[in-house]
């Protein structure tokens, strides 16, 4: 697949860079032009990512698959150390790439009136960030992956540090150092894998390719260490429970669009990292650590929900709800069952949609009132009906109302976890997190939207304009789409997740961890959904 | 004879220390001279007669003279005073005279031994042979080092190195 002679993955990844360069050439004073260029770039960037999914089942694409990856680009990059420029996407990456291009566009669109100073630099960084994030989801060479992973820190750091709130410096540096510390450990593990591979196959076969590493089957002791290093790198990014402290700071201080990207895409890089790298590379360590990881997830779910409930700041509330939701996501992934991982991945998308939208929602009132304190609002539904509707949809999506996307994800995760005898207790505990989630979100909605419209400033607030509505439309469509017809999306996940679970199936049989087949049959409805997804995949 | 080595070795160190202690430029220069001469004696005692003589001629002779000329001529900050008391004068003269005496003694005393040992390594012919064959490059390259040193000393030493205004006026 090519667009104008450029391999499609390259086109999708580097298209924002073209916008970036154009913006650099436009003089500072022409702010409107800069905004238009950025928005057009974002929109076209989204459009050119659509052929990825449209052509997914085309014979030439299917035939071009390598290691389960489509649209593969594979050229030597740094020959001396064996790093290759290796791009490719499977179903998991596909969904995340689409989410990224969409959220990127929405974030750019939502900044139209929110960013008033240093417009040029702002949009330049946004587009740069876009390229960095897309690269992370496409790279299948660990060196390349690491490069994108780190590089995307820099524009995000600037976005928080320059356009952020009052404590932006603290938040920006904390974000940067936290993430860097984790990722450097990950780099160490990558180098360790690299040398391990060399020690087995010799220097001539030096490589950073994920698929080469997957074939090796590292010894458990080594897996143990490498997994821990990767774990810290990814867990900080997710963020999982003990490593989450940078998140509220970064979220609260970041500009709205920054929060949207941060919650919608950046955090997904951590979860994606687990699914793409940790799970296939370190099965033994994974199984060994499952109880610990599950515990952390459950603590994250409940702790995040409880803290969110106590927040007075709307943005902070949404930030802590992210901790809770991502705990849920990771729970599904670490369950290591087909349903669980699929649910985890779909929940990543859900979280991107609903939390991204919630940050936008907070940003809209913040832009009008310049405060995010819940007690400053109340009764907004009277003069902002459109806003209230959208807020409600997104709240319900976030708490997992059937018919909306959140339900599908949470249900699959809990079911996938419950399917394993040894993990049932975690599933039960996590389910309580769902209830807490409903509590704090509905409470928030009630306090902000219902009651009497008392404050004078609030009475003056205008409802959404066309641009703002337009930012939400795609998100709402997706929320409903995933909620009602999930199999359209789940079918892309089936094959790649199966590839991972196959590894574990074998390992678990070895370790005599029984899968509870009885329960699987019990959930016939769910089973049917899953089976439907199996339709035509490979 | 052995004892002489120790005497001169200690002397060279003492002079070197004195060089650091002295506050006046001229005393420093003279201590350096003493140090150089002591080292020359050591060379000669080691049958490196030629190097010893070079040390004497080049360092104790010409380099010292240059030093003194520079000190007297440049006097960059006008702070060096030539308060050369007679006491110091006699002290230095006697010390240096003593060294010369010992030096002569060593040269005469060791002459025959130089004959006895295969001294081809140290003969002038062998030395110049090497200097102009194997060590030609270092020998020539050292001139760059000296040139750099000269540039530096002029740059730091010249009193009225103004910002080029003079040139403008002259031209």
């Amino acid at each position, binding site marked *: 697949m090519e667009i104008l002679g450029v391999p499609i993955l390259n086109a999708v990844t580097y298209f924002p860079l073209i916008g970036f360069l154009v913006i650099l050439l436009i003089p500072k004073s022409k702010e409107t032009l800069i905004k238009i260029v950025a928005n057009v770039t974002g929109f076209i960037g989204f459009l050119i990512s659509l052929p990825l999914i449209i052509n997914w089942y085309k014979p030439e694409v299917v035939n071009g698959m390598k290691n389960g990856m489509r649209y593969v680009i594979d050229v030597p990059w740094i020959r*001396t150390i064996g790093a290759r420029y290796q791009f490719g996407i499977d179903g998991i990456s596909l969904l995340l790439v689409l989410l990224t291009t969409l959220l990127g566009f929405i974030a750019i669109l939502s900044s139209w009136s929110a960013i008033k100073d240093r417009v040029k630099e702002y949009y330049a960084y946004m587009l740069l960030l876009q390229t960095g994030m897309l690269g992370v989801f496409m790279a299948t060479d660990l060196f390349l992956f690491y490069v994108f992973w780190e590089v995307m820190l820099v524009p995000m750091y600037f976005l928080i540090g*320059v356009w952020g709130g009052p404590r932006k410096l603290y938040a920006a540096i904390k974000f940067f150092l936290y993430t860097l510390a984790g990722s450097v450990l990950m780099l160490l593990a990558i180098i360790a894998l690299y040398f391990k591979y060399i020690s087995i196959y010799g220097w001539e076969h030096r490589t950073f390719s994920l698929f080469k590493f997957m074939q090796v089957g590292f010894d458990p002791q080594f897996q143990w260490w490498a997994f821990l290093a990767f774990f810290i790198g990814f867990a900080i990014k997710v963020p999982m429970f003990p490593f989450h402290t940078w998140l509220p700071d970064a979220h609260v201080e970041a500009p709205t669009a920054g929060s949207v990207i941060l919650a919608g895409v950046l955090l997904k890089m951590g979860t994606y990292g687990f699914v793409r790298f940790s799970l296939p590379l370190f099965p033994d360590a994974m199984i060994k650590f499952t109880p610990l990881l599950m515990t952390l997830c459950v603590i994250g779910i409940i702790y995040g929900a409880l803290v969110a409930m106590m927040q007075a700041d709307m943005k902070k509330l949404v930030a802590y709800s992210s901790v809770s939701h991502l705990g849920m996501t990771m729970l599904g992934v670490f369950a290591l069952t087909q349903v669980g991982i699929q649910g985890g991945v779909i929940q990543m998308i859900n979280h991107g949609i609903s939390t991204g939208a919630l940050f936008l929602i907070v940003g809209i009132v913040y832009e009008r009132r310049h405060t995010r304190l819940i007690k400053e609002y109340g009764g907004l539904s009277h003069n902002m009906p459109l806003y209230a509707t959208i807020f409600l949809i997104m709240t319900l999506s976030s708490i997992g109302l059937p018919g909306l996307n959140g339900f599908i994800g949470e249900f699959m995760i809990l079911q996938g976890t419950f399917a394993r005898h040894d993990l049932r207790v975690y599933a039960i505990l996590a389910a309580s997190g769902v209830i807490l989630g409903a509590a704090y979100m509905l409470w928030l909605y009630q306090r902000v939207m219902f009651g009497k419209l008392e404050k004078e400033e609030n009475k003056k607030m205008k409802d959404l304009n066309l641009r703002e509505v337009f930012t939400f439309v795609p998100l709402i469509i997706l929320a409903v789409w995933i909620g009602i017809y999930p199999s359209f999306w789940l079918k892309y996940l089936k094959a790649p997740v199966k590839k991972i679970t196959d590894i574990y199936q074998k390992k678990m049989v070895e370790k005599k961890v029984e899968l509870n087949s009885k329960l699987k049959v019990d959930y016939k409805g769910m089973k049917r959904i899953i089976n439907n997804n199996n339709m035509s995949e490979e | 004879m052995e004892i002489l080595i120790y005497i001169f070795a200690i002397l060279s160190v003492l002079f070197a220390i004195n060089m650091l202690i002295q506050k006046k430029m001229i005393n420093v220069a003279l201590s350096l001279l003493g140090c150089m001469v002591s080292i020359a004696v050591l060379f000669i005692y080691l049958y490196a007669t030629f190097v010893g003589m070079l040390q004497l001629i080049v360092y104790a002779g010409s380099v010292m003279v240059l030093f003194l000329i520079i000190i007297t001529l440049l006097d960059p900050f006008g702070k060096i005073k030539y308060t050369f008391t007679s006491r110091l004068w006699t002290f230095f003269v006697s010390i240096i005279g003593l060294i010369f005496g010992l030096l002569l003694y060593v040269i005469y005393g060791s002459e025959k031994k130089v004959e006895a040992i295969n001294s081809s390594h140290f003969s002038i012919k062998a030395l110049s042979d090497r200097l102009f064959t194997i060590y030609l490059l270092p020998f020539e390259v050292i001139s760059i080092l000296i040139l750099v040193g000269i540039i530096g000393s002029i*740059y730091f030493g010249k009193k009225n190195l103004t910002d080029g205004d003079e040139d403008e006026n002259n031209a």
Partner: protein
Amino acid sequence: MSTKSLIYVSFLPEIILGAFALLIMCVDPFLKKREKVFSTIISIFAIVVAFISNLLFLSRDASLITFNGMIYFDFYSNLLRGLFLLIGFLVSLFAFKYIEREDLFPGEFSSLLLFALIGMDLMAISANLIMTFIGLEILSMSTYILAGFKRKNLKSNESALKYFILGGVSSAILLYGISFLYGFTGTLSYRGIANVLSKGSGFIGSPLLFLGMGMILVGFGFKIALAPFHVWTPDVYEGAPTVVSGFMSVGPKAAGYAALLRIVFQIFPFTLPLWRELFVYSAILTMLIGNLGAIIQKNVKRLLGYSSIAHAGYMLLGIIAADVMGMSGIIFYLFAYLFMNLGAFGVISIFEGKGEKFVTIDDYRGIGFKYPQLTFPLSIFLLSLAGIPLTAGFVGKFVLFGAALMENHMGLVLIAILASLISVYYYLKVIVYMFMKSPIIEGEEIEVRYSGVALFSVLVCAFFVLYLGLFPSYLLNLSKEAVVFLGI
């Protein structure tokens, strides 16, 4: 090529540099003040010509020893010489307007720079300890003078004097060490010494040899600014004219490493375990002292001074690894370091303004978006120094740390990583001040004037930092090809 012409070819770039330096000294006195720039132009021209002559006569296949066993004519020499000439070229470009602004003397500056380049070349190509020493002395002597080039500035004087005294002592120690080796082996040529040492394994444990080696290490440690011989660095960098600080942070370091690599691997391959121990401790100390010292600095020149100590420590990992990857990593890192550090010093020399007034981090408040053409390149340099991917610094560190890891120096690599994490903090601090803090008095950012030449050279540095970060393969291969001649 006949042997005779080969001799001259192998030494041609140095001859060119020397000739042009003399030419400058002859021409300069006859120039009016306004025409003084001409000497800088001559020096740039000389460097370009030397670079071309270096390119024309490459020795990629064989390692020849010319000039009666004084000079190696091999690809290692070629590559390192290219590195030094690049340093000289960029420094001259940065100095172009700097000298005019600070009312200095272009004639002396250019000729001293050319002489320093000759000294650096000699250190890299020498096959004989006496040659190495003379090269080192020429380089040092030139740098002493350059450090004190602002005669009327007390700090500059202090800097020169400190550098001179400590440098003199270290040279003496180095020479003493060399004399021990000579007494031990009766020869000064690298190969000769290696031959003697390889024949008698009984020598290895000898305290005299160990002492001699240690003294040589001390001498070079001083030039490279390895802890515990680093104390002069921050003071000297702070006091010296900024362009000269830039040169000192890159030039002597590169030359020192170039010579050290030859000495370690061509003279002492048999005694490597002895060296390694020393190097490991020194590397740990250097990295920690450099990075911890930099954290508390307010003066950007001092900050970069400390950071340059730290970088010397990272490079030492390559010697400790002692394999092709580590060695080529050092050479690659020297190139990367050249662009990022010289670039950073170049931007600083622009920001500080006439009389070097604005050199504290506080002065950098709020200039980020006012002069993006300079602050963004500076950010790139700092991020590269911190080792963020897509920059040359990352690839360099990756190769060096990787090499050390491959030779099972896990603890050392962990310390190195910790050290570079610390470094991220203070590099980011500069970026934070530039972009995210407003000036103490609103609207009172420093005024920055810059010339086209300076901007051009900054952009060239930034380009290469990114280029080497994206496509390091070519240079890594060249470095690999070069270090093969060290006979590892």
